[in-house]
Every structure is written in C-alpha cells, then in structure tokens.
C-alpha cells in the first residue's frame, strides 16, 4: 500500500475559503440557508466552513446540522461488514429552507442519494445543493453532481481518497491511497 499527498494543509485552507466565498455569493446572509454535514466525515468540512463564514466573513448566524444516512443506505445486508450508525442532530426546521449538503468525498453518489431521502423526514426544503471537498470524477453510479467542489480528482476504483482533519487525525491533509 502506498499513498501520495493530494492536498496539503495550506491548499485545504485556501479551498475552504474559496468554497465559503462561493456559498456567500449564492446565499448572502444565510437567512434561509442551512448547512447539513453528512455523517460521519462531512461534519468536519461543515464545521470548518461554518467557522470561516462566522469568524472571517461576519455572517452572524449559520445553522449547521448533522445527518446520518445509515438507515437510508441501499446496501443494508449486502456488505460483509455491518453498517454503523452515527448521530443525527438537526435542531431546526428544514421546511422551505435552502439546504446545502456538505461532504468530504463524492464518489459513487449513493450516500447523497440516501441523504436526499433522509432529509425528507425533516420536512420539504425549498432546494438542496451539494458541496464536496473532493469530487472523484468518472466514478459515479448515479446522476448526482456537486454544486460546489473543492478539487476534482481522477482516481481509479482500486484507489481510495483519505481526508484527514487536525481535530480527528492530527493534521489537515488529503491522501490518495493505492492499495
């Protein structure tokens, strides 16, 4: 197994700032917009974005929720490993809100398909957008594309993209792992 660095801490930081600016361009003061971090790893991206929006661009209130999609996945009983659930925490109404799904890696699109179903349990958003730090091009199983993408990556199926966060793994870095 070998790995190479796709993004350094500095590059991640620049990308997150760009994504934050793109969000502001479309959502201005975030009055009717909510960010939803997709569990388990999208929450880190979402928290970073919220921090940048609040601290550096003075957006007074950014609503942030976490959505777990385990019970909506289409591979229940199909994998060798059992699925493990994470916490869902959405303390606000999503009815008529603009929802932005935030995830770290967009790969087959199946997680986002599950998230689109899961969010319906909390109401009917007026629209849903997708933000992803890494977009693995050419590997989609479903017709799902991001509205905001950090970096597009061409990776073959045997490769894996690993996104590390300082708060979890001790460093900000994105690796391409070759099995």
């Amino acid at each position: 197994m070998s790995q190479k660095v796709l993004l350094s801490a500095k590059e991640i930081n620049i990308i997150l700032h760009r994504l934050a600016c793109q969000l502001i361009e479309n959502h201005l003061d975030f009055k009717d917009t909510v960010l939803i971090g997709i569990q388990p790893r999208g929450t880190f991206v979402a928290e970073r974005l919220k921090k940048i929006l609040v601290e550096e661009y003075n957006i007074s209130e950014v609503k942030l929720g976490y959505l777990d999609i385990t019970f909506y996945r289409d591979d229940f009983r199909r994998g060798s490993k059992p699925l493990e659930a994470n916490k869902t925490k959405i303390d606000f109404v999503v009815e008529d809100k603009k929802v932005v799904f935030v995830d770290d890696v967009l790969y087959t699109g199946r997680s986002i398909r599950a998230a689109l179903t899961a969010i319906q349990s909390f109401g009917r958003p007026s629209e849903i957008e997708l933000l992803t730090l890494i977009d693995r091009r050419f590997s989609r199983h479903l017709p799902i594309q991001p509205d905001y993408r950090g970096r597009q990556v061409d990776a073959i199926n045997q490769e894996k993209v690993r996104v590390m966060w300082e708060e979890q793994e001790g460093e900000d870095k994105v690796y391409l792992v070759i099995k």
Partner: protein
Amino acid sequence: MSELSVDHLLGIKYLKREDIELIFETADHFKEVINRPIKKVPSLRDITIANLFFENSTRTRLSFELAEKRLSADVINFSAAQSSVKKGETLIDTVNNILSMKVDMVVMRHPNPGAGVFLSKNVKASIINAGDGAHEHPTQALLDSYSIRERLGDVEGKNVVIVGDILHSRVALSNIFALQLQGANVKVCGPKTLIPKYIGNLGVGVETDLRKALEWCDVANMLRVQNERMDISYFPSTREYTQQYGVSKALLDSLDKEIVIMHPGPINRGVEITSDVADSKQAIILNQVENGVAVRMAVVYLLASKIKQ
C-alpha cells in the same frame, strides 16, 4: 462491536454485555428517528416479519408491529385465537407454513417456556422471543434497563428491586439476567409464596418487607399480580396484598430519597401501585412504553442485518 453475538433473541441469558450495549446505542439512534416529523426509515424494506401471538398481548404486539413498520418491514400478524392451532396443527408446521410465504423473521409469544428455543432449532428464520410462559421476556427487560439508563445515566451499580409476583413472571427473570449482566444489584420483594424457592441461586437478595426494600433501592420495578396464571391462592386477599406490597404516594414520600418507579404494564391501579404513584413524576411507566418501540427497532434491525441475502 457492531454486530450481535447471536442470530436470535431468545432470552437475556444468551446475550453478552456488549450485545446489550450495542442494542442501546442503536436504540438511541432510533429514539431520535421516532421523534422526527416523519418517523420512518427504509432499512428493512426487503424483510418480512411474522408476529405470532399464541397468548394475549396488547402493548408488546403493538410495540413490535410499530417498530417493524417504522423500519419499513412488511408485517403479518397472527393470533392463536383465529388460527389452525385450534385444529390440531403443530407449532413447527404452523411456522413452516408461514415461512414458505417467504418470511425472514418471527416474533413469537407462546405460553410454553422454551418455545422460542425449540423453534429456533427447527425452522429457518430469525426468532425473537416476545415472552415464553414464565421463562423470559427479553425485550421487556431491555427496555426496562434502557429506561433506567435514560433516567439515572447508568445501570451499573444501581440497586433495583423487583416487587410482586416473581414466581409467574418472565419479566422478573429477564430483568434479573439483564440487570446483573450490566452490573446492577438486584433484590426481589413479595409474599414468600410468590418468590421462587431457589431464586437465591441467581445471586439476588430476597426481602419480604416492602419498606426495607424501597429504602435500599434506586429503582422499584412493580410487577402485576398475574391472577390468570395462579392455579391456587398465593395470598389471602387482594386487599391484604395491597396493604403489604402496594406502593402508595404516602409510602414514597416517607422515604428519605426519591426512587424511580417502573411497571411493565398493564397496571392494576390500586393494587400494586396507587393512581397517584402511577401518574407521578417518579413513575417512568410511559417512558418505558416509548422506549419499547426504540429498543425493539434496535433488536429487529440488528438481527435483520445478520440475515443472509
């Protein structure tokens, strides 16, 4: 751990402590789900479950059915009163007939102890015991412990007394196993005639004085007197039972601490507990019912995830 160590839920005595922890963690997620505007997830849409009730039940049957439906399973219900059991069909034949309609899981209540174990050895389906005679009622014990954990933070180290008809109670036996597995101290309290002779072998204390038992405990689980299972008289009169083993608000207020009151239902108001106790803040009887759905969703979900495709 992310998988149960068992393929069936036949009794608490077959579980490990980690199994109970996994069930509770999963139930936490489902409790959040059933408090959403839309209380349903699509996980089990390709699973069919048969609820076989050879004995009367209201809340357990409804709770299981709701849990299954909230997981999007297909559900068929069967009660012995309207079935071919009355025409002489054996249990295995009845169940195999149902299974040939492509059923993946069976939830069964049966008057005979061991019916679930027997079935699990003879048919190809995942079995959940919803009560077998006076033997075990595992999901009730799980939801009881889950409710204690919710109210008191933890089950370990807590003193729990089970009061009433221990002799005829599957709830008592499953609770003893579940509580001990999680490190709680358990005592039983009731008239000597309603306490099994060798209960001490399970490592539980016996107390015949209700006040002493309540002074000792953090939680009192009040059982119903099961008149329907009593072939002889175990105490002189209901009035006398209530005087000695009924919990009233006055008795609770006279204790120097606030204990938690539980009851698996159905309550006989004025017999094992008075109405003002049943409706007081100390009673978590309705929390138990709500948690019952979440805990059963967890059990069904975790067992279903082990069914091979």
